[in-house]
């Protein structure tokens, strides 16, 4: 090598973000755990969907779980539910929660700063590269579960959360849309990961932060909190996509959750950026600062949460309560029942009826008249009534409802057994339980109660 001094003094040359981005991607993809997680996110969902769809006992506690051997599209939605609970917070933790801290661990900040010469570009390159890897993982979860479902079970109609049948094409579009909607809370968690990684340095808390925050938000969703609090937490985004599978779609909570998640993503990334640019790189390693995390990380996000709660409570009056009441449940259950009665009639080869002819209605009560008829709980009991063409008598069936605070419910048939008891029906896709035996439904937490 011959270095000469003939050249004139060189100007300060900044490395373009694209090169920094490539460098960060190379570093991320050279880590075996990142490679393994990408591989897992492309393989495990497919294996799970393929295996579980062949079983007779299905994960019916999970939304769409009971339809896993009826259509290939439900498997992807079951994976989406699991991903929102477990996989995405963990994947995001490992990638975004470590992308800054890794340099602290390796003591390479100074090297990187001398090479790139701009903390701003380093931040952009690191954020974009971790986002790319996270998107690759989400794409893996979505594609592998959907492809396995369609190949193993088939591209068939999906029963929505109001009992109506979504044509295969419609189901495919909505499954894709549901995954896209789940990106918003994933981005929020990723931003929290970046914030933790920037502020906590080598401390393991930085790595765990997104997972811990996601867990805390899941616990919050299980508590009987007002709707405003529920929707103001970005974790609701992992639930709100269910609204896509009702008719009409429950777009209010979904849009609010997406906006909230994106707000969290922007604010947390902004805070991480602000903190990163002010960081002192004179020491080779950094073990994080709890105080800084509190003042520049936790407090602004808490303020954002408080503002969102306040805004929602003022803007939408139903958001002040639980969002679950007698009227909403009655309408929802009657609709689900009507749609699935038509399905059952077809499966039992009875004379065809339509939802309009059935005129199904429901009458619900919580706690046998001892409790107020609002809120979540398993004390809801509903009587569904319907009419058959040419029959004077009104049909009636009883359901016990288990309503969770997030608006989802499972209605368990409580007689008469010929209508909603457990029996096997023969369907074109094989034997299946009576569709009226257990019903899944979802109420819109944000709509106002009518009558």
């Amino acid at each position, binding site marked *: 090598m011959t270095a000469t001094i003939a050249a004139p003094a060189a100007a300060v040359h900044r490395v373009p973000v694209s090169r920094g981005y490539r460098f960060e991607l190379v*570093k991320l993809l050279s880590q075996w755990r990142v490679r393994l997680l990408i591989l897992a996110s492309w393989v495990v969902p497919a294996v799970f969907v393929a295996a579980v769809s062949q079983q007779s006992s299905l994960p019916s506690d999970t939304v769409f779980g009971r339809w896993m051997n009826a259509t290939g599209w439900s498997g992807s939605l079951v994976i989406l539910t699991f991903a929102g609970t477990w996989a995405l917070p963990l994947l995001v933790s490992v990638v975004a929660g470590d992308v800054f801290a890794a340099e602290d661990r390796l003591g390479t*900040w100074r090297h990187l700063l*001398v090479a790139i010469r701009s903390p701003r570009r380093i931040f952009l390159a690191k954020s974009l590269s971790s986002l790319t890897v996270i998107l690759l993982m989400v794409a893996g979860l979505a594609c592998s579960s959907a492809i396995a479902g369609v190949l193993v079970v088939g591209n068939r109609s999906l029963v929505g959360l109001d009992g109506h049948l979504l044509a295969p094409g419609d189901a495919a579009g909505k499954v894709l849309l549901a995954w896209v909607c789940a990106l918003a809370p994933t981005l929020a968690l990723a931003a929290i990961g970046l914030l933790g990684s920037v502020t906590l340095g080598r401390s393991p808390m930085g790595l765990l932060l997104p997972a811990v925050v996601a867990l805390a938000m899941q616990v919050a969703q299980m508590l009987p909190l007002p709707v405003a609090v529920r929707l103001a937490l970005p974790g609701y985004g992992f639930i709100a996509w269910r609204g896509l599978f009702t008719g009409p779609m429950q777009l209010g909570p979904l849009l609010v959750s997406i906006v909230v998640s994106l707000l969290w993503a922007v604010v947390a990334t902004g805070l991480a950026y602000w903190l990163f640019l002010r960081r002192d790189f004179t020491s*080779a390693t950094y073990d994080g600062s709890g105080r800084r995390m509190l003042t520049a990380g936790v407090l602004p996000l808490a303020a954002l949460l408080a503002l969102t709660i306040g805004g929602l409570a003022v803007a939408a009056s139903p958001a002040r309560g639980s969002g679950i009441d007698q009227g909403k449940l009655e309408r929802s259950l009657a609709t689900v029942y009507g749609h699935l009665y038509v399905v059952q009639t077809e499966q039992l080869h009875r004379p065809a009826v339509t939802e309009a002819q059935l005129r199904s209605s429901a009458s619900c009560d919580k706690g046998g008249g001892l409790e107020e008829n609002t809120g979540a709980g398993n004390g809801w009991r509903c009587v569904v009534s319907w009419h058959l063409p040419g029959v004077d008598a009104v049909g009636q069936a009883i359901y016990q409802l288990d309503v969770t605070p997030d608006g989802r419910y499972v209605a368990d048939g409580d007689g008469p057994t010929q209508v909603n008891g457990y029996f096997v029906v023969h369907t074109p896709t094989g034997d299946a339980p009576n569709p009226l035996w257990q019903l899944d439904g979802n109420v819109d937490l944000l709509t106002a109660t009518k009558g």
Partner: protein
Amino acid sequence: MNTSLAVRARDITKCFGDVVALDGIDLDVAPGRIHGLVGPNGAGKTTLLGLMLGLAVADSGTLEILDRPVGRALAAPDGVAGFVDGPGLYPSLTARRNLAALAALRGRDARTAGIDEVLDQVGLTDVADDRVRGFSLGMRQRLGLAAALLTMPRLLVLDEPTNGLDPASKKHVHRVLTRLASGGTAVVISSHRMDDIEALCSEVSILNTGRVVFSGPVDKLSAESGELDYRLVTTDAGTARELALDISGLRLVDEPAAGHRATGEALVVRAAVEALDELVARLVNAGVAVRELSLVISPLEAAFLALTEQQKDNG
């Protein structure tokens, strides 16, 4: 502005909170020179090197690197390379991939960036495709040097580059640095190893508590050091001892007490150069042959020790 200097620092001051890391530092490094920085721990060597790399900016004073004033952090001009506090390497990448990633950052094609050449220069060709995770400290140091060489620097800044190197590797590194300097690159290195500094550097600056206490050619240090300890082996130790006692300005040193290896035939004398010359002349006149005459510790080491002792005394 003096256009012939790679580093021109004037009255540089840098504080970290209440701690004054650099206190009015002046430093000139010309192209093609290897300049050594020595000083006890906490003297400010790494801080000064960090300023040259552009990792931080001085609180006051002016710093010109490759003829460009450096007024803010991360604004060191192209042509500066090196590392402080150990080379920054990614253990999950191979040696070659580490260098290729760095070359790509600079917008150069990995195939034409000269990766093989620099790996060869630092003697890491055989392990080029091994992950850095398994590298020894010495191998990491050499790879860090290769990474710096890849950018064809005009100013190379290295913090303790020979830490953890075996003698053969050290020689390798010395050769690389000397060749680089002969090509016109200015090299600034810090080291605790006085033998390294003496073997490599044409100039040296001694730092103590953030100040430059000596700066200039290594030879000049020997003139300034005054009395030094010499080890003397003759054919007749008894006569030599008697002759030595007669010379004013020359003292015999109690060897074990001075921390030197004691042998029956050797004397250790403390003297200025003139007194030593007289002793040698008298030995020759008396028919006593001089078999060995060497410095017990180098002028640089003596100056360094004097400084650290002074620091202890002050403390």
